[in-house]
C-alpha cells in the first residue's frame, strides 16, 4: 500500500495543516451531533410536555351527543396496531358543583383508573390524597379544590344534567398544568359514568388513544376512518396546527443549519486537500517519472481524505458527546430545562457523512493528481 504510506507521510510532514483540517472536520461533525441531538431532544421534550398527557386521537360517534359503539372489531383493530400505546374508553359526565350560594361546572371523565393514568399521568400529578377511583370517588383539579376550598376526603355534591344529585368523596387532587383544566375537569370511575349517563356496556362518550409515535396520528386516523365510517376521529395534528407547524419549522431550520455546516466542512476539506495537492505536485511528478501509474497516484489523496475523514469524524464524535455531557450537567440540569440524549442513528449518520464528505472532497485533488504529467514538473525545474 505505497499510496497509503505516501498519503500518511504527506500528512505527517505538515502536522499543523493536518491538525487544523482534522479539527475543522471534528468541529463540523461535533456541531452536527450536538445540534441534531439538542433539537431532537428539545422536540421530544416539547412533544412530551404538550402531548404526553393528552390523547392523540379521539374517537366519537358521528351524531353529536350519541355514544360510540366500542365493539369487538374496533378493540381488535386498535390492539393490533403497534403504535397504539394506550386506549381509554370513557364517558364524559357534565355536572354542577353547588356549595351554598356558589356553583362551578365540572366535566367529569369517567373511566378505569389505571387506563386514565396511562394517558393523563394522574399519579405523577397528585397534589394530595391517594390515587383511587371507586364507584363513589372523584379526583378534582387543584384550582377547583383551592377555589371551592375542597380537600381530599371531603364529600362534594354534584347536580347532573338529569337534575339528579350525587354525592362523591374527593380521593385526591391533581395539577393538570393548565388553569382552565384544573378548574373544570375531574375524573371518576367507570361505574359512576355508566350510572350517571345510563349507557349500556359498550357505549362510551369517546375512545381516547395515545400513540408511541405522535406524527403517525393522521395515517392511523385515515386507516380507522376507512374501516369504521360511522365514527368521527379527532386528530391532534389537525386540532393543534400551530404546535405542529412550530415543530415542523424547528425540524426544517435544524436541517438547514446541518446542511450549511456540512457545506462548510466539505469546502474546508476540499480546499485544504487541493492546496495540499498543489504543494505536493513536485513529489507526485517525480513518483510518476519513476513509474507510478496515474490511478495509483490519484489514490494518494483519496487515502488522505479517508484518513482525515476518519480522524475528524472520530474527534467530532468525542467532541459532540462531550458537549452533550457538559450541557447535561450545566444548562440541562437547571429546572425547566430538558436532558439531551445522543441520538444513536443521528450520531452514526453524522460520522458516516463526515467520512463521505471527506472522501468526496478528495476526489477533485485526486483527479488533478491523476492527470498530472511528470514532464510538467521536470521541465519546471527545482
Amino acid at each position, binding site marked *: 500500500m505505497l499510496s497509503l504510506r505516501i498519503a500518511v507521510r504527506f500528512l505527517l510532514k505538515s502536522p499543523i495543516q493536518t491538525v487544523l483540517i482534522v479539527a475543522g472536520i471534528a468541529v463540523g461533525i461535533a456541531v452536527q451531533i450536538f445540534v441534531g441531538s439538542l433539537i431532537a431532544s428539545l422536540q421530544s421534550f416539547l412533544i412530551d410536555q404538550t402531548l404526553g398527557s393528552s390523547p392523540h386521537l379521539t374517537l366519537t360517534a358521528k351524531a353529536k351527543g350519541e355514544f360510540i359503539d366500542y365493539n369487538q372489531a374496533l378493540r381488535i383493530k386498535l390492539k393490533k396496531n403497534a403504535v397504539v400505546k394506550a386506549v381509554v374508553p370513557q364517558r364524559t359526565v357534565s355536572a354542577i358543583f353547588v356549595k351554598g350560594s356558589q356553583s362551578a361546572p365540572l366535566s367529569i371523565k369517567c373511566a378505569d383508573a389505571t387506563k386514565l393514568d396511562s394517558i393523563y399521568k394522574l399519579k405523577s400529578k397528585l397534589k394530595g390524597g391517594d390515587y383511587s377511583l371507586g364507584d363513589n370517588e372523584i379526583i378534582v383539579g387543584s384550582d377547583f379544590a383551592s377555589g371551592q376550598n375542597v380537600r381530599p376526603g371531603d364529600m362534594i355534591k354534584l347536580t347532573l344534567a338529569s337534575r339528579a344529585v350525587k354525592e362523591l368523596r374527593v380521593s385526591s387532587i391533581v395539577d393538570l398544568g393548565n388553569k382552565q383544566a384544573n378548574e373544570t375537569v375531574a375524573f371518576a370511575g367507570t361505574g359512576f359514568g355508566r350510572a350517571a349517563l345510563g349507557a349500556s356496556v359498550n357505549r362510551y362518550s369517546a375512545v381516547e388513544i395515545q400513540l408511541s409515535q405522535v406524527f403517525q396520528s393522521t395515517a392511523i386516523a385515515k386507516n380507522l376512518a376507512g374501516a369504521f365510517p360511522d365514527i368521527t376521529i379527532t386528530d391532534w395534528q389537525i386540532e393543534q396546527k400551530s404546535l405542529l407547524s412550530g415543530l415542523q419549522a424547528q425540524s426544517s431550520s435544524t436541517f438547514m443549519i446541518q446542511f450549511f455546516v456540512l457545506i462548510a466542512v466539505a469546502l474546508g476539506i476540499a480546499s485544504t486537500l487541493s492546496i495540499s495537492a498543489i504543494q505536493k505536485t513536485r513529489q507526485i511528478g517525480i*513518483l510518476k517519472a519513476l*513509474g507510478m501509474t496515474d490511478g495509483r497516484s490519484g489514490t494518494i489523496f483519496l487515502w488522505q481524505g479517508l484518513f482525515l475523514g476518519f480522524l475528524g469524524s472520530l474527534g467530532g464524535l468525542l467532541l459532540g458527546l462531550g458537549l452533550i455531557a457538559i450541557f447535561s450537567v450545566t444548562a440541562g440540569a437547571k429546572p425547566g430545562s430538558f436532558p439531551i440524549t445522543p441520538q444513536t442513528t443521528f450520531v452514526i449518520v453524522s460520522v458516516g457523512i463526515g467520512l463521505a464528505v471527506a472522501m468526496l472532497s478528495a476526489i477533485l485533488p485526486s483527479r488533478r493528481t491523476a492527470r498530472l504529467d511528470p*514532464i510538467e514538473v521536470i521541465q519546471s525545474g527545482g
Partner: protein
Amino acid sequence: MADRLLQANGITKVYGSLAPTVALNDVTVSLDHGEFVSLVGQSGSGKSTLLNMLGLLDTPTSGEVRLDDLKTNDLGKRARAGLRNRRLGFVFQFHYLLPEFSVLENVLMPTLISGDNKADALSYGHEVLELLGLSGLENKSATELSGGQKQRVAIGRALMNKPALVLADEPTGNLDTTNTDQVFRLFRQINKDLGTAFLIVTHDRRIAQQTDRILEIQDGKLIQDVLSPV
C-alpha cells in the same frame, strides 16, 4: 543489433499549434547496452526534450522510439510507466528527492512502486548506498543532506531497479567541481561494474570528453555523433 537497447527513428517534437515550435527535428539515434554516452548542446538546443523522449516521459509528434526493440509510441501511459520503472533510471539536475521519506526509502522508491520482493530490495538498497558512500545515512531525512549527498541518493534511486539505461539530465549542474568529479566517477564505476548504459546530458565539454561517445544537438537537430577522442 543484438546489443541495441534504444533506437529513436526520425523523431520530431513540435510544441503548440497556433505558433508551432519545433523542439526536435527528425532525430535518429541509437544506444547499445553498456554504452557511456554524453549529449551536448547549447541551452534550448533540444537536449532535454530528446532525453524526455528517450526516457518515455514524453511522446514525439512523429517518428518512433524503440526500447528493447519494442515500439513505445503506441503503448498506454500505464505500460510506459512500467517500462520507466523497470528499464530506465533517471537523474535530474535537481535531485527531486522526496522530503517526506528517509534516504533509504528514497533509494528504495522505484522498488516500492514496482512492488518487488522487499527483503531483496532492502539488501540491494544498502548495497547501493554503500557503493555511493552513503552508509550510515540510511535513516536520515533527505532534507538533512548536503547537495552532493542528495545527488548521490538520486543516483542510488536511479540504480535501484537495476535499469538497463540511466538518463541523466545535467546531473552535476548544481554541484561544485569536487562533487561533479565524484558523481562522474560514480557513473563510470557503475557503468563498468554493473554494465548499465548511461546517457548524460551536459553542457560541460570537459565532462562530455570523458564519455565514450558524444552526441551533439543544435536547434533540434543531431549534428554530431562521434566517438570520444579519449
